[in-house]
């Protein structure tokens, strides 16, 4: 063995040594709960009979798949997540582009933008619930003042999900704006200067320079937000309890319902795992697409 090879092996061992405590900690705080949840999802564990054994295999998943409400919840979750993230991204990018041109008062805008983000979703939901109250809420009152009809924001099966989506966008968009604004601020100036010399119009600069250069930041933002939206639980819990009917029963609320109302922790864990698999699959596909485009 050469001296270089021995040195490299020792370096690797030392590297593992440094990484080991962190990896152990991760295994304890993330790996163990994940494995335990996985075990629960294939077990017969309910709150009435709290025992892991017998292992029932994929029975809990089969029960889920046979439940009409599971599919309704999955479809609602996909619809809700895609729409909220799309709106957050499009509007957020627009605002970030505008903020990018602001120089002197930027810190004030950023300070204001962090307010909704710093609030807990439960507080946000409670505040909006009061504002949207059909009879005594300020929003319907203002609408009536200007001659518009009153709306049953959270009580109408056709409106409730989108009202919830609007509240979500209101709270989450600040995060998107801040990340995109940071991404925009870090873009190099030289390509723009060259484009200006070549006579490129602002829209062309945006399309051919800003968007491609911003792609990695945008991708990360979209992924983080998609994961967040797929896990939405607080808003339906506080605003509608999944109703009216099943109009706002998203997947994480469905999992909670199975686990704690149905007392079937095993079925709740199975539903949560389906949610995890969907989010993981989306993340992988999204990054694969990005990589392919970057190479192409």
């Amino acid at each position, binding site marked *: 063995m050469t001296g270089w090879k021995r040195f490299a092996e020792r370096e690797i061992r030392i590297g593992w040594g440094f990484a080991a405590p962190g990896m152990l900690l991760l295994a304890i705080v993330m790996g163990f709960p994940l494995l335990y949840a996985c075990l629960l999802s294939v077990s017969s564990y309910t709150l009435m009979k709290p025992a892991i054994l017998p292992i029932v295999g994929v029975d809990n998943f089969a029960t889920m798949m046979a439940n009409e409400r599971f599919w309704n919840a999955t479809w609602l979750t996909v619809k809700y997540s895609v729409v909220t993230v799309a709106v957050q991204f499009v509007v957020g990018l627009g605002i970030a582009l505008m903020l990018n041109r602001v120089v002197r008062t930027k810190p004030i805008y950023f300070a204001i933008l962090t307010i909704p983000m710093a609030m807990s979703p439960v507080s946000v939901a409670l505040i909006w619930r009061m504002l949207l109250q059909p*009879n005594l809420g300020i929003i319907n009152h203002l609408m009536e003042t200007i001659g518009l009809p009153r709306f049953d924001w959270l*009580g109408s099966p056709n409106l409730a999900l989108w009202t919830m989506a609007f509240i979500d966008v209101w709270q989450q968009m600040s995060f998107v704006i801040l990340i995109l604004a940071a991404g925009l601020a870090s873009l190099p100036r030289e390509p723009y200067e060259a484009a200006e010399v070549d006579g490129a119009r602002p829209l062309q600069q945006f399309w051919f320079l800003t968007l491609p250069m911003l792609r990695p930041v945008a991708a990360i933002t979209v992924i983080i937000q998609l994961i967040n939206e797929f896990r939405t639980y607080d808003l339906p*819990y506080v605003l509608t*309890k999944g109703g009216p009917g099943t109009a706002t029963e998203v997947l994480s609320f469905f999992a909670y319902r199975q686990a*704690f109302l149905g007392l079937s922790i095993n079925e709740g864990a199975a539903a949560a795992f389906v949610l995890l698999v969907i989010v993981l699959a989306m993340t992988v596909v999204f990054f694969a697409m990005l990589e392919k485009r970057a190479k192409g």
Partner: protein
Amino acid sequence: MTLKKVLYAAAGIGALMAASPANADEIVLRALMEDVPETQIIEAMLPDFEKETGIKVEFEKIGYGDMHDKLVSQLVSPQSYYNLLEVDFLWAGEFPAAGWLADLKPFVEKSNYDLSPFIPSTLDLLGRTEDSLQILPMYNYSMGLLYRKDLLEDPKLKEAFKAATGKELAVPTTLADYVEISKFMKANADVAGAAMQGQRGDPNSMEFSNYLFSAGGSYLGDGKKVTLNSPEGKVAIDLYVDNIKNGAQQGALSATLDDTLRLMCSGKAFSMVTYWWMLPQVDNAEKCPEVAGKVALSVMPGGHGESGGWGWGIPKNVTPEEQEAAWKFIQWVQSRDVSVARALQGHAPVRADVYTDAKVLEKYPYYKTAQDVVATGKSFPIFAYSAQYEDVLGTSLSQAGGGEVTTDAALEAAHKGLEELLAK
């Protein structure tokens, strides 16, 4: 001091502590309580109990929605942090079925505790059987009808109602009459006919139960056979949905108890089907000046409303000393004297002798009607999956109220859902 000496000293102190016998005086009772006036009333009296017995009691107050999950996680653990339990009647099937509660019967027998003053329906509601007593009633939340006397007595409205229906405008005696008056008020009195709590789950299933019992329907018949899908059940759901659509306030399908209370308090509703002890909340000149002095309580039209209540329980997974201390507290807090003192501050009693107490009646004359509301109340099905059934029934009602399904389909789904959960 060397490390060795420190270790010896620590070991000595540890040994002394371990050798000390468990003393009842040192026991601290800890209970997870719903943050409502009843809890605050008792909390203010806790120093009296501590003075009398030397046992300290600590209440951790949270909202109802978070209680069940927090309690369950303690009850399934090897040793519960809470050694005194406040148990909702909706969990009175689940907790004993899971084997989480200590039987109170031996405690009752050992201490010769007299159960006869308790209104029988309050004991039955919490699952009392001949062989066991898992939960002792704490307070009840039976439901009745709160209505605006001033609107019923308004000459113009009386005349208009007579012209429209040929009937006198008076306190309704049947469910159909009630819904008819509710719709009339919405159309003619510039108020919602009924402030309804139609949010899916506990709010709408509790509310609907009143309609069901008023119409003469039931959830379960003899031998626990499901009887919900009956002609009476159909009348009840039709009238419920009719009132949601044509009598209630806008937004009834997402409304909770708090929303209905605010609406009634603001003078924008004629009536609400609610817990009888909401009357003093609404009939309060400071909090609700628009309607104070104008509101009255009656038993649900049809003679029966939904009965509900909280009780005291003792977890199995605590020490015998803690269980003894918890029983001591339960006896004290449900004694006649303490119950009367609580009632004078607005407590909803479970003992008949409190409703007939002269001091209580002098302060709250409507307690006479309240006693009728409690005595005639019928119960939501109590079994291990009651909380889930609330969600199943609530979803069907909400879908029918929103026009997503017919009342026939909703009733059938609610009926089938109950059968499935009973068989689970």
